[in-house]
């Protein structure tokens, strides 16, 4: 095994034992990048020089015995989190040259934990997409099949982990943007409870839905990352000031006596049969591990996508108004007046999907339509949340497929936005309800594409998700495959 293929906890062991240096790990990651990045294109910006410099410093710390949870671990950041002094684009032309004078709180936390940054990963423009095809910097390819999408919007971060171009990475999830690409790339991805991980410095798509979370190679690494990311941030009003447990304690615990809710609304027509088969197999594993699967109902499931595609664009239309060519980013050249400056800058700076969502959102909030769209959706959102509250009275966690299908072909859905939106059908409700979710690998299709399943829990019950995911991971004994790149 190459160093770049190992997990955080495996590398930590080796570092502690003096078997490897931070520099060796980092160099191993960059040699992998040199070998495959051209084909995969998961990074917008690589930070090799900074990384090697940080690695030598980490080695100094290691020699002094100062080993933090991520000391010497190469981490990739989705280009949606602001990094002080380093261009942060959000996958958009409009921010192609933006250098933030501040770092996101999660970046500060990762830095304090000793992380080494490999680079900024590719993403759908402003996180609007499920395929990483809308990036101004071109698409990222699925490492399991280069003709296919890696999922999105955090496709770059998922791919970087799956292709061993980093050890772990950071993504953001507004409607499934961590869990769906994690499933399609065969890795672990968690969307924490809304308010659990600071959004400060996360470039906003839909503020009431956005949440940062980790991509990792296994569940234990997810717990390690969550230990670093989670916690109250006074810079964010919606941050929750609640105690954060040590997530690693949930690793290796059994789930005897747990009730696992299987919502009937998530097993509908249109799901790829191989996905259904993989989930059924996973259910058997869980039951063998002592869990009891029960049928539950989430009656408003069929309204999630419609609700989401009002609320998210409405918030986005407002969040993206700041890209006006005045203070930073792109400004169109040779404009005659102020109005033309706004209109042309935004026409040139945004891609088609971003414009489409700004249009939907602006329309949904505009005079005469607010009640019919935004208000109605906010009410249905309350009903969706209520469904989960009811469900968690009868079960500990909920199990669903993460995505109705494995990775689809590049270009397959780009001309049909509605079909693209429906690929988020199983992940969107989580964000609307603010609850945590985790996607973990549960097998492969006959064609060799990864399949993911999703566990959902009540607010602030990430511990439960880690516990059941880890129990499944242990009991399933799935073969370790790596993409043949």
């Amino acid at each position: 095994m190459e160093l770049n293929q190992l997990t955080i906890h495996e590398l930590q062991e080796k570092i502690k034992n003096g078997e490897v240096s931070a520099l060796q790990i980092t160099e191993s990651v960059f040699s992998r990048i040199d070998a495959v990045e051209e084909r995969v294109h998961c990074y917008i910006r690589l930070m090799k020089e900074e990384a090697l410099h940080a690695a030598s410093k980490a080695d100094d710390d290691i020699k002094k015995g100062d080993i933090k949870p991520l000391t010497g671990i190469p981490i990739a950041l989705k280009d949606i989190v602001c990094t002080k002094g380093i261009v942060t684009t959000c996958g958009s032309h409009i921010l192609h040259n933006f250098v933030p004078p501040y770092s996101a709180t999660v970046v500060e936390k990762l830095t304090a934990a000793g992380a080494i940054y490999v680079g900024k990963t590719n993403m759908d423009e402003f996180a609007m997409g499920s395929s990483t095809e809308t990036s101004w910097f071109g698409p990222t390819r699925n490492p399991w099949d280069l003709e296919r999408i890696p999922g999105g919007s955090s496709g770059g971060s998922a791919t970087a982990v799956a292709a061993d171009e980093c050890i772990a990475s950071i993504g953001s999830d507004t409607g499934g943007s961590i869990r769906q690409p994690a499933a399609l790339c065969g890795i672990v991805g968690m969307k924490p409870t809304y308010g659990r991980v600071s959004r400060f410095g996360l470039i906003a798509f839909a503020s009431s839905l956005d949440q940062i979370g980790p991509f990792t190679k296994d569940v234990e690494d997810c717990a390690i990352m969550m230990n670093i990311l989670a916690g109250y941030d006074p810079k964010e009003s919606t941050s929750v000031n609640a105690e954060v447990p040590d997530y690693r304690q949930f690793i290796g615990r059994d789930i005897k006596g747990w009730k696992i809710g299987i919502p009937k609304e998530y097993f509908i027509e249109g799901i790829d049969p191989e996905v259904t088969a993989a989930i059924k197999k996973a259910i058997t594993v869980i039951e063998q591990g002592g869990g009891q699967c029960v049928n539950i109902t989430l009656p408003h499931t069929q309204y999630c996508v419609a609700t989401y595609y009002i609320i998210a664009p409405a918030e986005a239309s407002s969040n993206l108004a700041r890209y006006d060519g005045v203070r930073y980013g792109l400004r169109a050249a040779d404009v005659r007046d102020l109005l033309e400056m706004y209109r042309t800058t935004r026409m040139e700076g945004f891609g088609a999907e971003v414009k489409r969502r700004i249009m939907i959102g602006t329309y949904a909030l505009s005079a005469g339509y607010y009640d019919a769209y935004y208000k109605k959706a906010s009410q249905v959102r309350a009903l969706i949340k209520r469904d989960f509250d009811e469900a968690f009275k009868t079960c500990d966690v909920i199990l669903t497929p993460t995505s109705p299908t494995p990775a689809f072909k590049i270009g397959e859905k780009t001309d049909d936005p509605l079909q693209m939106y429906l690929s988020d059908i199983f992940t969107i409700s989580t964000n609307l309800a603010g609850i945590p979710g985790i996607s973990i690998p549960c097998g492969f299709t006959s064609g060799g594409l990864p399949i993911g399943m999703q566990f959902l829990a009540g607010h602030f019950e990430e511990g439960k998700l880690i516990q059941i995911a880890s129990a499944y991971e242990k009991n399933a004994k799935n073969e370790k495959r790596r993409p043949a790149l």
Partner: protein
Amino acid sequence: MKISSQEVEYVAHLARLEINEKEKEKFTSQLNDILLYIDKLNELDTKGVEPMSHAIAVTNAFREDKTSTSIGTEQTLTNAPDARGEFFRVPKVIE
């Protein structure tokens, strides 16, 4: 048809997006597909349901009235596409 091409034009103007005729046509048809799908919500009776605008119930998040360091004029203007002296510069604003 839920949304007319004139409405698309109006919305594009509200959002300060320049769109050409071809895009207008495409947006009109795509937006109509999406809005038609969204109409699903009207099947539901939501009378008396309190709208949910936050994912979690946090209230009263305050900061104290304590000064923190500003970043200064130079840093403020570094990213500006057009700055002059200590100001951002824009095409003339007519009031």
